[in-house]
């Protein structure tokens, strides 16, 4: 067994994986993954397509059980899905309310809902159905719902992958702003190494299927989102690409 970040493992993490393996039939998808996540850490996970990132998040969320190994959670986790997890028969506002059902007073519930929609810049779309929204707007609503759910950990599965480049840049700023107002522990799966380098406290690179831990990287300790052209980002991008098998010939 290899335990990376032993210190963090001991320092009361909010989510830990210990020697986790997962297979579907004879297909090994995840092999001996061990790592843990600190409270309010922003952990990015990058890896080739089909390597098992979504599977990893399902294991973290408890939607499936690992073949072997352990997943430890200290509290609730909420997922922002890769392919859209809003309930299409509920309006954007009603979807957010799903997370606020436990608040008994109607007025407080409405206030919390309005606050969350405001936070993600969707205040005007409370009564709109998901199919009437753009992909980026849907992802904002999903983010608002997850934030309203007041869980310690948010699992985000390529949340910005459907967005165009400029919107994605904007959403990175937004996410940092939102997290400064509503601190959360984030597990952020992405294809975009630049995004990982700009946003994350720590980046984990997974190998092709079966996913194993290939590289762990701390892009820097500066203010996020780190400047796109800054040394921390460009340097980290290079290292991440190399770990993913993309040699940079420049």
């Amino acid at each position: 067994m290899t335990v990376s970040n032993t210190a963090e493992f001991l320092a009361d993490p909010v989510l830990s994986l210990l020697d986790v393996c997962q297979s579907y039939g004879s297909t090994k998808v995840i092999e001996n993954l061990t790592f843990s996540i600190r409270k309010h850490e922003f952990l990015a996970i990058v890896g080739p397509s089909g390597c098992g990132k979504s599977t990893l998040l399902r294991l973290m969320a408890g939607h499936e059980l690992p073949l072997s190994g352990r997943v430890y959670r200290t509290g609730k986790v909420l997922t922002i899905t890769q392919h859209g997890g809003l309930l299409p028969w509920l309006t954007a506002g009603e979807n957010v309310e799903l997370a606020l059902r436990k608040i008994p007073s109607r007025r407080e519930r409405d206030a919390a809902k309005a606050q969350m929609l405001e936070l993600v810049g969707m205040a005007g779309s409370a009564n709109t159905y998901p199919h009437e929204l753009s992909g980026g707007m849907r992802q904002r609503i999903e983010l608002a719902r997850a934030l309203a759910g007041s869980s310690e950990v948010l699992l985000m599965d390529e949340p910005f992958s459907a967005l165009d480049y400029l919107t994605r840049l904007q959403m990175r700023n937004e996410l940092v702003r939102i997290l400064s107002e509503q601190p959360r522990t984030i597990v952020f799966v992405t294809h975009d190494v630049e995004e990982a380098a700009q946003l994350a406290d720590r980046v984990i690179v997974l190998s092709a299927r079966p996913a194993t831990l290939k590289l762990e990287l701390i892009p820097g300790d500066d203010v996020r989102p780190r400047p796109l052209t800054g040394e921390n980002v460009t340097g980290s991008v290079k290292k991440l690409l190399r770990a993913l098998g993309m040699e940079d010939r420049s």
Partner: protein
Amino acid sequence: MVVMKQIDAGNPLGGNRPAAYRAGGSSPIIPLRIWSLVAPPILTLLFVALWQVLFNTNVLSHTMFPSPLQVVHGFKQELATHRLPEDIVASLWRVAVGFALSIVLGLPAGIALGSSAYVRGAFLPGFNFLRNLSPLAWIGFAIVWFGVGDAPAIFLIFMSIFFPIALSVSADVAAIPVVYQRVADEYGLSKFERLYKVTLPAIMPRFVTTLRVAMGVAWLVVVAAEMVAGHNGLGFAIYDDRNALRQDLLVVHMIVIGVIGVLLDRYLASFAKNPTLQWGFQRQNL
């Protein structure tokens, strides 16, 4: 010179639904909405006129076919005797009870079948067997058990639509995307909340279609049931017309049955206009 055609105008369905692909790309002279309103009555009138002409010119044998005018006359007679409204009410009542009973029992049965592989494993073969059994096969029992009147017709309607309703609901429940169940898990929905916040709304758009199909079958079956085990109702009226060799009334009752069938279907189809069901009728427009 290259002529550019404007293709983004004149979509009668509105912007968020792609206009049907038209090879020619020309815009229609009459908007589809008006055309669909005007064309069917015109075609009907033409058909009736042709029918009357064929009758007057003796192309249609007078002993085998009534004329449109005879049918109108028969309709007036039927209205005068008050039998027609009574027959309509009797048939509608039987369909309403049989339909309601089949939904009240078929919806939960379908949800149970769709939610649990164990329930499916036990009951699916039996349901499939009964679904494939023509309801008319039960007529012999229906008369012996229930005599003549409302009960045998209701029983036959139930036997014809309960199983298809349960089976189609079960297929729809089993096909609910797992991501919605996970949302329900993560946000801690109770069993009851899951039912009315996830399962029921998720199947509702398809359920409207199931209801339309079931109503169509029920309306067919009630006529057959009343012909053999009725003392009133539209099916019995048809049976009566046949025995009395009243072909004019036969046509009157056929028209009434068809029109009511269409109206019932229209009514059920209007449920699909509900805004909470719209997601289920959208074409992907990514």
